[in-house]
């Protein structure tokens, strides 16, 4: 495993966007929340490449937006250009979300555990927090309602990927196994894309499992950067697929010419 990222002719932000993009398909109906540059770039790239029918509601509001570039906030109205509909009544949005008409959402989170549950509420005890975070916002809602959840984080370290969340703001696979099914919740987390690797989830235990390693990263490095024990599949772990020239060109020139995605790094 001597391959390095430079040999891919791209940077880590680009690799993460392209990897995210490829996980999307023509049936994806997605929307985004705050500080979601990687997913937003991913949706736009997928729509311009292999998934022209992908639906994306910019800021959860501007359906099928087609912005000329990505502004400093992924909730900004500067992201809404070219939209076919502005849907900002709660009645509209939550009808589409709770009925899984929107089927895809991507989470970050100050903490992520082995089952893809997320915390954005507190570091430390809820009643006497060391750090009070913004709050879960829509995490508790969308984690329960949306069948295809993607996680991402550009800072893969043991403070983010923890053994135990200080607060479960949003559900991933819950306690693992058939927990979601028992609660009657659809689907669950599909992938977690980080700056070191791509995790998928074991089909039964629903624990995170290394699906591919980014060029130059070893499984030992991933384990070291992760606060819980990472599952490793049988056999050789593949390297994350290389972006095509065309994907990189579209991302750099059309989707995100100003490099807004770098705000996450």
């Amino acid at each position, binding site marked *: 495993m001597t391959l390095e990222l430079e040999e891919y002719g791209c940077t880590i932000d680009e690799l993460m966007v392209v990897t995210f993009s490829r996980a999307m398909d023509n049936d994806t109906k997605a929307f985004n929340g*705050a*500080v979601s540059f990687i997913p937003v770039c991913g949706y736009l790239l997928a729509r311009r490449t292999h998934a022209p029918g992908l639906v994306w509601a910019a800021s959860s*509001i501007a359906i099928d937006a087609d912005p000329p570039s990505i502004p*400093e*906030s*992924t*909730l*900004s*109205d*500067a992201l809404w250009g070219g939209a076919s509909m*502005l849907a*900002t*009544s*709660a009645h509209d949005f*939550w009808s589409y*979300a*709770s009925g899984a008409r929107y089927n895809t959402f991507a989470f970050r989170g100050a903490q992520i555990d082995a089952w893809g549950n997320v915390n*954005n*509420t507190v570091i430390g005890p*809820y009643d*006497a*927090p*060391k*750090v*009070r*975070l*913004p*709050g*879960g*916002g*829509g*995490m*508790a*809602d969308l*984690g*329960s*309602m949306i069948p295809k959840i993607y996680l991402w984080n550009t800072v893969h370290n043991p403070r983010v990927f923890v053994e135990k*969340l200080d*607060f*479960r*703001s*949003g*559900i991933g696979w*819950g306690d693992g196994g058939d*927990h*979601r099914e028992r*609660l*009657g*919740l659809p689907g669950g987390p599909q992938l977690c894309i980080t700056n070191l690797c791509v995790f998928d989830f074991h089909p039964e235990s629903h624990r995170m499992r290394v699906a591919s390693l980014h060029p130059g990263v070893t499984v030992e490095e991933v384990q070291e950067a992760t606060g819980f024990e990472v599952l490793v599949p049988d056999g050789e772990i593949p390297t994350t697929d290389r972006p095509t020239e065309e994907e990189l060109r579209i991302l750099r020139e059309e989707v995100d010419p100003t490099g807004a995605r770098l*705000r996450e790094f």
Partner: protein
Amino acid sequence: MDKRMGIEQAVESIPDGATVALGGLSMNSAPMAYVREIVRQEKRDLTVVAIVAGMSVDWLIAGGCVKKVVSGLVSFEGLGLAPSFRMAVQSGAVEIEEYSEDLLICRLRAEAWNLPFVPTKAGLGTDLIPLHEQTGTIRAEVDRSTGEHYVACTRLPVDVALVHAHAADEIGNVRVDPKLIWMDNEIVNASQRTLVSVERFIDHGDVVAEPHRTSYPQFMVSGVSLAKLGAYPSSCFPEYGHHTAFFQEYSTAASDPESFSAFFADRIVKPETWEDFIRSCGGDEMATSIRRSAA
């Protein structure tokens, strides 16, 4: 009935200890002119309901007005954490009752619709459920007929809703223009009284000429107050965006708790009127910089 009233007069009607719901969503459309006046009038012990908020809640906390925040999220988004909110919750000076967006909307709907609860699947399997075992305001239930899990969200009574909008006539018909109401109608429907700050007054005749553009009917509105750039430093789509520089200046000032009190008193509280405040934030030049050409 003429429902026009000054920002000061409107805020005078809010008693200490009231439950006040703030409109807007994150960096958008917060009723900042009312919020600033609440700070100036030194209201105390407010319970503040804010589904997804930022600067509005932070000002009220910095002003010492808040006993409890009932919220889904308080932050400055990509521009950082809300500093006064963060510090006050960490120190225990302000109580927080955390929900999620949909759980709060369902609680507001239970109140608006006069129902013991409104069900949702939001929050199942999260720590919000055990957290609220004490409050009893939301509870996990199992449907006796299908065996399905759901969360029952009980009523959230609100004394006053404060929202910002584009225009109103003298009797209180309010136009959000275009009709992008975020979740503001949910708090309006749940509140005993609603006060609306607006960018401009329009004639009743203009309202009648295009009645499909009215967002809240006059009988849902208790008072309307003129506040040009009244959502500043948050945005008022499509007329103006949020003011990044203000958020940055505020966050920087807050990094030193000592000097922040002086900054807050001087920059936020001191200006006599909302117009004075806007002037002190850069006035016309600043306004031009945040105005959308599309407006």
